[in-house]
Each structure stands twice: as structure tokens, then as C-alpha cells.
């Protein structure tokens, strides 16, 4: 089981969730599975924690949701990025990549040294 601090995930949560809508609309369960698959199992969230994030992003006008009934009678709530959401995603991707690169430049060589000490 991969470990990372809750705070670190909190800082990246919106970017990760918005990213999973880059290729179209999805429902909550699909987002959870997509995050697991694309992170190669690194982001195994407690699935319930995703929904307050989806609702917050919808409240902020970055996502919009709609209910759909499947042919088998089951229901799903699909979300899709709004125009504002697409712009926010673009900003967040730039911000995150710049930030991650800067962290990497500072800590990259150190991490190797400290691993040798351990």
C-alpha cells in the first residue's frame, strides 16, 4: 500500500479530480477507478472522500452534474467540466507542473543521498 501524507493529497486533489474529466464526462465510481489505473495504484482513495470533492467543484461552477438512468434501471450521476472548469484545469496543470519541477530541483539529489544513508 503506497503511503503519502494526507496534506500532500489534499493539495493535489482538485487537480487530480479535474484531470480525470479531461477526456469527457464521468460518474464518481469511474473517477475512482481512473485515478487508481492512471496512478498505477498509487491513489487508492477511500472512495467516499471523492464525493464531497465532486460536490465542491460543482458548487464552484467547475463541474456540472446530471442524473442518467441506465437500461438496467440503475442510476448514475455524471459530471462534466464546464468552461470555467476547463480553464481552472489548465491553470492547475501549469501550476502543479511548475511546483513539482521546482520541488524536484531542490530535493532530487538529496533524496538519493538520504536513501543511501538509510
Amino acid at each position, binding site marked *: 500500500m503506497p503511503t503519502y501524507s494526507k496534506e500532500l493529497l489534499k493539495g493535489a486533489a482538485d487537480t487530480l479530480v479535474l484531470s480525470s474529466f479531461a477526456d469527457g464526462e464521468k460518474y*464518481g465510481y469511474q473517477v475512482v477507478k481512473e485515478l487508481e489505473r492512471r496512478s498505477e495504484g498509487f491513489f487508492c482513495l*477511500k472512495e*467516499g*472522500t471523492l464525493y464531497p470533492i465532486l*460536490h465542491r467543484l460543482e458548487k464552484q461552477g467547475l463541474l456540472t452534474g446530471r442524473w442518467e438512468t441506465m437500461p438496467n434501471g*440503475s*442510476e*448514475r*450521476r455524471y459530471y462534466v467540466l464546464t468552461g470555467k472548469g476547463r480553464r481552472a484545469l489548465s491553470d492547475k496543470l501549469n501550476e502543479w507542473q511548475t511546483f513539482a519541477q521546482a520541488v524536484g530541483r531542490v530535493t532530487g539529489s538529496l533524496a538519493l543521498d538520504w536513501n543511501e544513508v538509510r
Partner: protein
Amino acid sequence: MERDEIDEWSRSLPLPGRRRRSIARELRAHLADSRRELELAGWHPEAAARESLRRLGDPAEMAEGFVQVYRRPRRATIGLAFGLATALMLGIYGASGTFASASSAHTHPSRAHVTHSSHVKQAAEPGVKRQR
């Protein structure tokens, strides 16, 4: 948290009924997808139901997440309270002002009398024609 407990859990959320029902409906849909996938992977239905609930996580943490999303911002609450208090005070001041002027007319009839008598006096003065 069993499936029926989603209803119980959602009823405990300090949110409007419509919002609570919508959240419960969405979580039930999630559990149905999760269970179906586990069963397809060979899980026994009962074990799949338990596992899908386990994967959903801590109910209290989830509730806290939703409450944070839909809670009115503290600043807005303070602003609303301040606005109401100001409106109330202005209302009381306005009402007391009206009352004070009304009561002064009642408690000082002489003022009204003076005004009235000056008219009378003016009308009664010789050389002043009354105009109708």
C-alpha cells in the same frame, strides 16, 4: 455501514432534505457499481456488499466533507447576523423616534394650542382680512 444505513447516515447530515436524499442516491449508485464489479471478479455477493462499504470509508469523515461543502461560510454568517442586528436596532430606533414624537404631541398639548391660538389671534387682529 450497510446499504440501508446510507439512509440513516444521510438523515443525520445537517443539510436540507433534498440535498441529503441526492447525496444518498449518489452513494447508493456508487455502491451498486462497486458491488457489481466485485461480484464479476468472483466475490460472493455478501462479501462484495461488505467490501464495497469498506472501500467507501469512514462515514463520519464523509459527512464532515459534505458539511464543509454546503455549510454557509462563517464570514457570510457573521455578515448576516450583523446586518440583522443593525436592521433590528434601526427599526427599534425608528419606532421609538415615531413614538417619542407622537407622545410629545400628546404630553405637550400646549405646543399645539400655541400654534392654534396664534392663528386665532392673527385672524382676530383688526385690519387683517381673512382670506377664504
